[in-house]
């Protein structure tokens, strides 16, 4: 039996968080749900919309943009929303259900690190998807890149913060992984509606436009749109997203259970 005590692993030691993040990446791709819905679907929709001729005409009221131009930020928010509201919460609740979080509580790593690893994985995948969407739109469909790139990055960051906070809240209150996915889906559709997935915001009736601007993804679209046109995102849109992030982040911290 001495063999066990005598031979510490030779492998280079890395921090538990780095290991956990790597394992979570592997599982993310093995589970396939995240890659298909969070990455595949938005890119597929971009390809479909890009094939519609009327989407490539400059639209009145869009500040000189085509419908396709306006759809790119919508698809970006869609990818963020699918990852943050559905993929991440069901993974975390699944871990709670199976006792993974509890088991980690008995190790020096602790359960907080697996939550961090999940955030890292989903944020990284989101960033990669955003880049893919921008590049495909630019190369295949001549959608101009955002003219105010710094403003665009800030918009993406705020949108991600708001959605991740909502995702953590869903993970906090969802009793089972299935229930968490259902809650995520129920939130996903109205949020996407107000980001203009079915009817772009400039084409909405005024009342709906107001609601959109107050919703996290409507605010995100507005911020992206301004950056696309070369402006800094309006302060109100950033404040709106920050408020959603703070409210849901606080609620998630209040209600999150490890077991």
């Amino acid at each position, binding site marked *: 039996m001495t063999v066990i005590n005598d031979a510490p692993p030779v492998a280079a030691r890395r921090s538990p968080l780095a290991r956990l993040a790597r394992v979570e990446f592997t599982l993310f791709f093995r589970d396939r749900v995240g890659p298909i819905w969070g990455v595949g679907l938005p890119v597929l929709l971009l390809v479909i919309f890009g094939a519609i001729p009327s989407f490539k005409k400059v639209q009145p009221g869009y500040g000189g943009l085509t419908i396709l131009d306006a759809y790119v930020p919508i698809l970006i928010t869609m990818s963020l929303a699918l990852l943050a509201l559905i993929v991440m919460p069901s993974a975390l609740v699944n871990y709670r259900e*199976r*006792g993974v979080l509890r088991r980690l509580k008995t190790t020096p790593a602790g359960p907080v690190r697996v939550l961090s690893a999940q955030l890292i994985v989903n944020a990284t995948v989101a960033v990669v998807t955003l880049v893919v969407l921008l590049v495909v739109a630019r190369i295949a469909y001549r959608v101009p890149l955002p003219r105010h790139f710094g403003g665009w990055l800030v918009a993406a960051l705020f949108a991600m913060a708001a959605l991740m906070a909502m995702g953590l809240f869903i993970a906090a209150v969802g009793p089972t992984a299935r229930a968490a996915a259902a809650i995520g889906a129920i939130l996903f559709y109205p949020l996407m509606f107000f980001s203009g997935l079915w009817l772009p915001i400039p084409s909405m009736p005024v009342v709906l436009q107001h609601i959109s601007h107050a919703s996290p993804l409507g605010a995100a679209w507005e911020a992206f749109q301004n950056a696309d046109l070369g402006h800094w995102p309006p302060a109100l849109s950033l404040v709106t997203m920050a408020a959603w992030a703070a409210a849901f982040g606080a609620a998630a911290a209040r209600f999150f259970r490890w077991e």
Partner: protein
Amino acid sequence: MYMAFRAMCAAERNGDAACMTAIIEVRNLRKAYGDTVAVDDVSFTVQEGEIFGILGPNGAGKTTTVECVEGLRTADRGEISVLGLDPWRDRAELTQQLGVQLQDSQMPDRLKVAEALDLYSSFYRAPADWRALLEVLGLADKAGTTFKKLSGGQKQRLSIALALVSNPRVAVLDELTTGLDPQARRDTWELIERVRDRGVTIVLVSHFMEEAERLCDRVALIDSGRVVVVDTPAALAERVETEQRIQFRPSVPLDDALLASLPEVTNVLHRGEVVVVTGNSNALNAVVSVLARNQIVAEQLRVEQASLEDAFLALTGKHHRPEAESHGE
């Protein structure tokens, strides 16, 4: 409480070196969830190098007790010391030194055996070589298998491997063999004995009397949140050993009066061709000599003595249904 007290003193008086160092001390532990008192008053001491069993019926408070020891829960009252550490305050250090197997804790479905062990070993200062651990646990050929595809016994062995990957001095194993088939159960028992031979102190939570009898040096019987008694399995069984039951098939028909007249015998029964004799601890001798004198051969002779299970029933006064137990105390 009186019996528990006596048992602890007996253990201390034993005085051999292995029994001198207390590695876990639990004193007057109490834990309630709302109005439900899960653990009322539990005290026991685990000595270095022993396999210590915590036994009891459903909802007795076994799991809550070890969860307090593991630092998963705070005690409402009482003191716990594990390796000289306070499980709640010194969690960071305790988790380095305490190996834990939780009741129904699983790994992610698509995580492979080797990945799980590699990950968990990265959490610890001085981990064991998990490849060697896989060999010992007979999981070497499953290193590339995902958790979902493992059998119940393999999942259980993986959770033992994960509990040992930190090279712990103490391992707490909760419901180690629940849900395993008899062969897997026996294999697991052998494994635990080998782990103990390496010097790991083991706390075993179980509702299996056979398991405790086979593995444990000492057991604590817990009932309704209190320790009923702490002693060796053999000593516990002796406490209730008032009667013997002797079964045999006589080679020729037998007159009951022959046996019933013996002072050592209290009862004689016929079950088909089998005769069942109940009597005191000297009954076997008396019965065998009478049969020999009458030239009757006792075929398929069996003697049943009180087991830990009987002790359990006598001491808790409860009907114990092993298969009804699942989890969640």
